[in-house]
């Protein structure tokens, strides 16, 4: 396990370098000269050259990347053009909101998804199973931002149970978590159901039945236990999806967070902030996948061998 951990952690370095390189290149590819945006109208050529030198833009691209990377590792992500604050401050303000939303949505999709999947598998082909599967199909195809808007319409505007937007109280979390969670629940429930049905056909389950074990104990103690492995696999593969959902839903509910900050900055073309947000989101996806892989390896010794 220790060897697996070390190898898996070493794999992070090339991935991180590749992702940071793409994000570094964003400002390079943007149409127009970034310096022109910063210069005041009527500046002389000398002032422009001085500014280019000040930002290090006269050096070779790999050198610029190395400088950017070095600063970034020290927590210096530059200054926001429109909000006029260090990008790291903005991210520090918004990150906790995204983390809470993302982890609650992940927990909700895992728990409710496994429960519904197990329920559907236990009553396979019954009306409950069919109802759950139809809801799952709907949940996984409807656009999440529309689902969010409908939730706002029904529960916030019509019934007034929850606030329409913002993040002032805990109750403001309910609708966003539900909205992101529904897509995740659909995914987890589908995998749980399929895995449980497959495992229920195995010989050892027939043997348990023959032994006279109560069906409930077989379903929960044996079938579900084995079915959790593919569930963890799919969760570790798709952990980024929860984050992607969080980006969209934050904006729908006008909640502070990395997603809202990213989309607002994209619309204002505030590129240092865009870079910072994308970098943080990418790191979140990479770390999320890492945690998923470690949980998987902890559960299944066979997987630890694959990285040798």
């Amino acid at each position: 396990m220790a060897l697996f951990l070390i190898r898996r952690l070493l794999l992070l370095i090339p991935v991180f370098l590749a992702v940071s390189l793409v994000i570094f290149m964003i400002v390079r590819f943007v149409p127009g000269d970034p310096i022109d945006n910063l210069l005041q109208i009527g500046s002389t050529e000398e002032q422009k050259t001085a500014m280019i030198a000040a930002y290090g833009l006269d050096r070779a691209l790999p050198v610029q990347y190395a400088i950017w990377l070095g600063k970034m590792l020290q927590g210096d992500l530059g200054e926001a053009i429109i909000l006029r604050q260090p990008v790291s401050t903005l991210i520090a303000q918004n990150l906790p909101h995204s983390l809470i939303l993302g982890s609650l949505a992940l927990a909700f999709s895992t728990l409710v998804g496994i429960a519904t999947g197990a329920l559907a598998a236990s009553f396979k082909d019954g009306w409950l199973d069919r109802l759950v599967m139809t809801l799952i199909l709907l949940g996984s195809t409807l656009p999440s931002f529309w689902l969010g808007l409908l939730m706002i319409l029904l529960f916030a505007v019509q019934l007034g149970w929850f606030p329409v937007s913002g993040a002032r109280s805990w109750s403001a979390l309910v609708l966003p978590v539900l909205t992101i969670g529904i897509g995740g629940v659909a995914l987890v429930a589908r995998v749980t159901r399929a895995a449980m049905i497959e495992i229920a056909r195995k010989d050892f389950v027939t043997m348990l039945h023959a032994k006279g074990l109560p069906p409930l104990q077989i379903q929960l103690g044996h079938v579900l236990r084995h079915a959790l492995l593919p569930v963890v696999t799919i969760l570790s593969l798709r952990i980024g999806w929860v984050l992607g959902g969080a980006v969209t839903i934050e904006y729908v509910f006008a909640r502070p967070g990395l997603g809202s900050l990213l989309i607002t900055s994209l619309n204002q073309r505030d590129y240092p902030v865009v870079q910072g947000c994308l970098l943080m989101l990418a790191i979140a996806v990479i770390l999320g996948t890492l945690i998923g892989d470690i949980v998987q390896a902890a559960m299944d010794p066979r997987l630890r061998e694959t990285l040798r």
Partner: protein
Amino acid sequence: MTVPSSALGRLLRTPRGLGAAIVLAIIVLAAILAPVIAPYDYAAQNLRNANMDPGALHWLGTDEFGRDLFSRIIYGARTSLVIGVTSISISMVCGMALGATAGYFGGAFDRVVTMVVDLSWSFPEILLALILIAILGPGLASTMIAISIAYLAQFTRLTRAQVMALKSETYVEATISLGAGSGHVLFRHLLPNAVTPVIVAGMLATGDAIILEATLGFFGLGAQPPTPSWGAMMSSGTAQIFIAPWIIIFPGLAIAITVIAINLFGDALIDALDIRQRLREG
């Protein structure tokens, strides 16, 4: 074409497949015939009739500028379908080229392709699309490019898996032994056999692409006004959520019906062609 007509017949004989096909046909026809069907000019403002309830005059109501919502939704179908189909077609062609080359020739190129595909696989499509929009700037063309690249990994992976599986078939080995060149083997034998699952996967991805386009439009990063797009319509509707909720409800319903029809049709197509197993290999 590559989808055998007998499979299409089998598909249309199932109630689910037939229903989905009819709904899809209606949506496509509505988009093509938009100028004939739409009762009003989609851009005509009439501030006196702003935020009108759905009724006899305006079937689905009007938006905050008094524009007819029904006409705008029909024109919005054009934007959604054109962007969805074009970007997925580009993505499919590029993905097939990449996947087939990587799968057939192997070696260092294959390793690089697999690495990039695996890396982008863990990123949600919306995040990839946002990175590309950050580079290209908002707009219709960048939305299309962003969607094509966001789905590239999926088609590359699927084509590569198909080509790898077919490469070891006896008839391919026989063709190579008879002296056929790589081009002949790839284009005459491997690609024609690999293309069906990729087309079906592309069909299903078109539904996701329509949602992605609507999401980007909702963020204000997709189609720019006055082009009507479902996502952008809902975005302007959020300001009227207390007085005119239909501005949000109907465009969303249009997306939902389109995507569900595409998914049901694709799913029925998978059953009719009996390729569920081959799709999983990707």
